């Protein structure tokens, strides 16, 4: 269709503002981001690479990228050093650590899942209550949660360490789960509550007008729509729990420790097998990365499905 002069001017200026960058600028940006890629992602790739090498290749100088590919590191983690002779005490110590590592993986999984599950059951209703509760002191609530962050974790762990010893919870899984709940509960409440805040009150009102009870309204109407917010809180607190170091460092026994503590143990032996450590690290960081990537995709689709017409 024919545009007037005015319209042409406007169209031209819009087109100009939507112009992609000039070639020179694009090269610069791509270059800069490539350097950033090498800096931030390079080490991760390198660790993955190292986990597929043998000890001798790693310690060879200069280090090579594609010398050879072996699965022996992963195999040895899962199959107790197989047929290799356990000659020196070094080997024996290493083997013990390796066995402990698989146990540590299971521990961490159990700790993260159970603490997040319990926090969900207790926290989501609380978040709902917080969201619907009309009170003037909402800002002070926010400030209170912020002030929890001010406290160095060690400051609560040390007294907990003493208390746990007295009560007999030191080194127990039960005790550890409790402490992990301390991490996940506030996060789940905080983020789920934001999800609930997004939903207008009309939803419950409509449900109640249709004869639903308050509980039924919550479970059948509000909860499904709040799923994205709750899912986000679950993902974040799971990752936070999985990555936690300090609680396990101080409050766990050697049977109970999460992977974060177990891998630190690898570093105490001299002459350790770097390939195996790399494999262990890869296994330890895999769950968190998988969860975050999967969750991202789900969250995006969930958000678009839960749209409420306002």
């Amino acid at each position, binding site marked *: 269709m024919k545009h007037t002069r005015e319209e042409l001017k406007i169209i031209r200026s819009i087109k100009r503002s939507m112009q*992609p960058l000039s070639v020179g600028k694009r090269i610069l940006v791509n270059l800069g981001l490539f350097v950033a890629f090498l800096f931030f992602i390079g080490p991760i790739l390198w660790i993955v690479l190292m986990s597929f090498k043998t000890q001798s290749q790693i310690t060879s100088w200069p280090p090579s990228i594609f010398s050879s590919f072996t699965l022996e590191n992963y195999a040895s983690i899962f199959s107790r050093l197989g047929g290799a002779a356990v000659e020196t005490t070094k080997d024996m110590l290493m083997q013990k650590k390796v066995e402990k590592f698989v146990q540590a993986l299971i521990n961490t999984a159990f700790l993260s899942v159970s603490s997040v599950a319990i926090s969900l059951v207790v926290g989501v209703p*609380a978040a709902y*209550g917080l969201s619907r509760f009309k009170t003037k002191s909402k800002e002070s609530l926010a400030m209170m949660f912020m002030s929890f962050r*001010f406290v160095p974790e060690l*400051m609560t762990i*040390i007294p907990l360490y003493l208390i746990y010893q007295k009560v007999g919870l030191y080194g127990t899984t039960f005790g550890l789960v409790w402490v992990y*709940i301390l991490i996940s509960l506030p996060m789940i409440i905080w983020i789920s509550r934001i999800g609930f805040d997004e939903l207008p009150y009309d939803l419950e009102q409509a449900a109640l007008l249709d004869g639903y009870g*308050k509980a039924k309204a919550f479970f059948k109407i509000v909860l499904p729509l709040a799923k994205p917010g709750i899912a986000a809180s679950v993902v974040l607190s799971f990752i936070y729990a999985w990555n*936690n170091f300090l609680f396990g460092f101080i409050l766990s026994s050697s049977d109970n420790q999460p992977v974060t503590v177990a*891998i630190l143990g690898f570093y105490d032996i001299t002459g350790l097998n770097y390939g195996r450590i790399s494999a262990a690290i890869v296994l330890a960081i895999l769950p968190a990365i998988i969860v975050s990537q999967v969750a991202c995709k789900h969250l995006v689709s969930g958000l678009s499905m839960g749209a409420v017409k306002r």
Partner: protein
Amino acid sequence: MIIDKLRRQAAPSDVEQAVNRREKPYMLIIYPSLIVTILFMLPFLWGIYLTFTDFRLGAAQTNFNWFENYWSVMTSSNFLRAAWRTTQFTLITISIELGLAFALSIMMNTETIMAKVMRRIISFPLMIAPILATLALKLMLNNKFGVVNYLLSFFGKEDFPWGASPDTSMFTVILVDVWIFTPFMVLIILAGLRSLPKDPMEAASVDGASKNNILFRITMPILMPTILVAVIFRFIDCIKAFDVIWGMTAGGPGDSTTVFSIFGYVLSFSSMDIAKGNTVLVIVWLINMFLGTKLIKFWQASKDRIGG
């Protein structure tokens, strides 16, 4: 039937009444509050109480000490050195992370290929447990076979000692923290950049403002609250940093990287002086509270300046 419904709609909703009656919501909040209180508040308060005693593990009795711990801790040279290390660490780390994150965010706000790639994967260092990231980087920063040292050998610096020497340990620890947490700042600042309203900038350029002028006088102030959020989070976390530094150098050769939290830990578990160790941590908490609330006020002011 319709009249009944209309009548109900006209009257103050009994749902709202029930909510305001403070019944159900109150109940729902009780349980988590109880849990948090028992697990957090009580040990926390007891910990503070301990700092006023001369509690030692395995000591016969505990005596009340008033402020003796605080006095002796704050006048000890070890504490002052730890304070200096923490200040060094915090200020340098945040400056580097802020600058890097800002530059990266601007670049990642484009539609180039690398920008699209980076937007997807920039958060990876953040998903890794800090202690594990530190240990992994430690493997690569080894001066016998570390790949980074190999790259450095092209510049003749292949025996850079990283964490093994007191001269370079602080630099090493800062580098590791930058690696892990710059993506955190990038995520926040990038989100802020992408939600910038276009109108003020366009209006200014139509009015003839130069690109630099626009950047500094319009974009920056609007971005300031976002930047401050990132800075506040990092600031508080840096002051109480433990994981990264412990994993890399456990306090450094000597005490070259002993920051507050590590100092407190060492006092509590190596010297067995839990009272003094906790004293250090309480001081950290107070510093955090003081500086944190100041920063938050600053943030609120910057929000008000752009109209909330």
